[in-house]
């Protein structure tokens, strides 16, 4: 059974790899929007959550998709009890509250949607709301953060240069082996020796990305495997379930991944 949900009392765990926390804080102080690039599951979302808690800001996250319209971000009128009520969208809410608005996988959003971000990202820092005739001026606490995965780059799905040029950008990658081991141990409670083997395995599997695998194994998947192992599952089986099967559908590739897993955790 799942444990009951508890509100986060402290900042979510995030193991810094470099000076990204300082960079983020400096950008927030200077009221600059931030773009975070990096592969799936390398800790982008966790980083933003961590920073929001650290800076004491409300965080509003929007997972972008190809049907996300400008109204979905800004807000709309709703009818109730014979009258209409204006309902703020997540972006408007973040501007009013002076928090962080985080648009995850922003390339997935339609091009016309990202345009509403433009006046917020330059020195005006305003959000015009066409429907109500309001123009909101973002308070100093407000910050816009967007992220995307350049590995997914599709000819049709890439951020317009004019949009990209409005952000200060940070590149994320998988953490170094030591840091990743710390993360795995912290998140799953796995013992150091096994966490180290998992991280070595991740290094072996990451050599295959671009050749035999479309995507590298993410820190998130490693944490899943570690959690299964910590719960008492046989390590080879945990890795099969959490690493080999999610990474590929092709029987030969899965068989090869199993052979690689067995170099760390014998069957």
């Amino acid at each position, binding site marked *: 059974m799942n444990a009951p949900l508890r509100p986060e009392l402290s900042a979510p765990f995030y193991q810094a790899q470099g000076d990204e926390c300082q960079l983020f804080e400096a950008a927030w102080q200077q009221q600059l929007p931030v773009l975070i690039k990096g592969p799936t599951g390398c800790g982008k979302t966790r980083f933003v959550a961590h920073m929001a808690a650290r800076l004491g800001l409300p965080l509003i996250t929007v997972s972008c998709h190809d049907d996300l319209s400008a109204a979905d971000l800004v807000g709309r009128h709703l009818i109730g009890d014979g009258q*209409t009520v204006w309902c703020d969208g997540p972006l408007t809410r973040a501007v009013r509250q002076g928090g962080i608005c985080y648009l995850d996988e922003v390339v997935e959003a339609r091009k016309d949607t990202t345009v509403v971000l433009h006046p917020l990202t330059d020195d005006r820092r305003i959000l015009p709301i066409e429907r109500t005739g309001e123009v909101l001026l973002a308070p100093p606490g407000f910050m816009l953060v967007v992220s995307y995965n350049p590995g997914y780059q599709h000819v049709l799905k890439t951020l317009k240069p004019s949009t990209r040029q409005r952000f200060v950008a940070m590149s994320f990658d998988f953490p170094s082996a030591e840091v990743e081991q710390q993360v795995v141990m912290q998140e799953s409670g796995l013992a150091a020796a096994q966490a180290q083997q998992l991280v070595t395995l991740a290094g072996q599997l990451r050599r*295959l990305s*671009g*050749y035999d695998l479309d995507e590298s194994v993410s820190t998130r998947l490693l944490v899943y495997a570690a959690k299964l192992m910590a719960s008492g599952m046989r390590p080879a089986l945990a890795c099969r379930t959490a690493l080999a099967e999610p990474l590929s559908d092709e029987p030969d590739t899965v*068989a090869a991944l199993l052979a*690689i897993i067995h170099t760390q955790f014998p069957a």
Partner: protein
Amino acid sequence: MEDIVGGWWDKLVQRAAYRGHRAAAVRLEQVAPIAPVFFRAMGGDPALALRSTVGTEHGARRRWLERIAGTGERVELAWSDQQAFYLPEKIELFADAALNRELYFWLMALAASTRPAGDWLNANRQAAAACLSAMPGLAASYQRLVAAHLPQRPDPARLPPAEAAWERAIRQALLQPQQALDTLPPARAPYPLPLWLHPAPPTLEHTAPSTAQDPQQSGPRSKPQQRQRRRYRAQRVVQDERKNGMLMIFRAESLFTWDEYVKVNRHTDEDDDDNAAAAAEDMNRLSLAQDAHTKGGKLKFDLDLPAAAWDDTPLGPGLLLPEWNWKQQRLVDDHCRLQPMLPRDAVPAALPARLLPLARRLRRQFQALAPERTRKSGQECGPDIDIDRVIRFMAERHSGVAQSEPGLYQAWPPGERSLACLTLADLSLSTESWVGDEAGRVIDVIRDSLLLFAEALSAAGDSFGLYGFSSIRRQEVRFQVLKDFAERYDDSTRGRILAIRPGYYTRMGAAIRQSSRILLQQPAARRLLLIISDGKPNDLDHYEGRHGIEDTRQAILEARRDGLLPFCLTVDREAGDYLPHLFGHRGYVVVQQAQMLPSVLTRLYAQLTA
């Protein structure tokens, strides 16, 4: 009668002397599908191909039964070099098949690890120790292998002192690879150690490019593929310049004379290929010499160079293109000269009658492949009501800020598919090889594919260009313009496709770079670069093997960086070795039967563009 009894006796003794466990044999082809992936994950160079090795004489003491039977002289050992990693074709060392399979993986892990310097004993010991410490999962498997192998080794107590010292050192290194060993004085070769890499792997340094043609590129594919993947130990020798004198014909009458280089110029009337290949299997080292006389296949190739007057029609003075030098890791500017050409003898022609039914079907299919229709919301008229907007409009009207003329419909206007496709076909001499009585040669299949594909593309209404290429060294990369993007697809284009002929080599990098340039000039949202090939990149001047592969890879990477979508279709069955390195996991398709190429090509296009 004596012969028959002798044959029986021979078989009997050989069987008695044989140490392997045939019933538990694991063959390389059983692990081949996952071997490259495993090798790469262990840190092996992704550009290396998988090959099978052949036996080398180990020179160690044999048992008397083996001496009587005349067996046990050779052993197949694994190793890797700059081109490939080599594994035994089958492993039947242990009575347990699972153990034999584990040995394959152990050898791959060992070959993939960086080789520490030092003598064979210490280098392998250190590599084994490194593997075991980095991969604890392999440790259990390694212990099983060592435990099973130690009883197979000779007893040091029954060996002369020098050999016994080696044997003890090997046993210690096997059991405790972490412990350093002293370098031992030379002794008779120790009993072979199949758990370690080859003590003296054949080197490549002698391979001169002028004769190092890929056998798959120049010859017909009549021999079994497996044979061609084997690697022979070779040395290069200088051809004897003396005249032949009276000795015109040398007959390889016994294998013993094959083994040494005899200063006799062998003429072209050789044995059957099968005999020569069988003899090559048994030899320690093949001697290769540059010879004025060549075998039939090669002779034919050399004569294939046309006189200038008969050659294709060149367009312009040619273009200078760069090439990637992988050893220096840099792009060498103006390294290749690419010559655009029109096929000679191209006369306007209709589609051959035999292709008409298929072409008609493809045209219908591709016309039905309707250009993308995308839903457009907020239209002022259209077949569907945009519920979302109607609700919003009602709400806004209630609140008093409604627009006067809202678009409340959804429409499905025919989308404009903005797509350009460039097809680049390999026209090298290897495409002359025969694929079957009905299909004819590879080049015939490529020609039919181009014709049918062009029919399909013109039906779909997408903008497309068709080109072909071959090369003779870097100075002449021949780039056949079959249909330019600006040209219409008509009988004159069909005539040009019908006039293509195979010839020369496969300098793929330059052709891809030129194709990328052409494709980049096309105003389209998506630009597809389709490459049809039948083998690895190769050319006469250093462009075989690794150099060609790395240059092609760079050209593909450049194309991808420019936003093109490169994709390869090949009929080469060994493509799995090198194509993932060139095009990535999802960037290619191997067509098992050449005859299927036209249908695979058209189906693939529909998939890629859908």
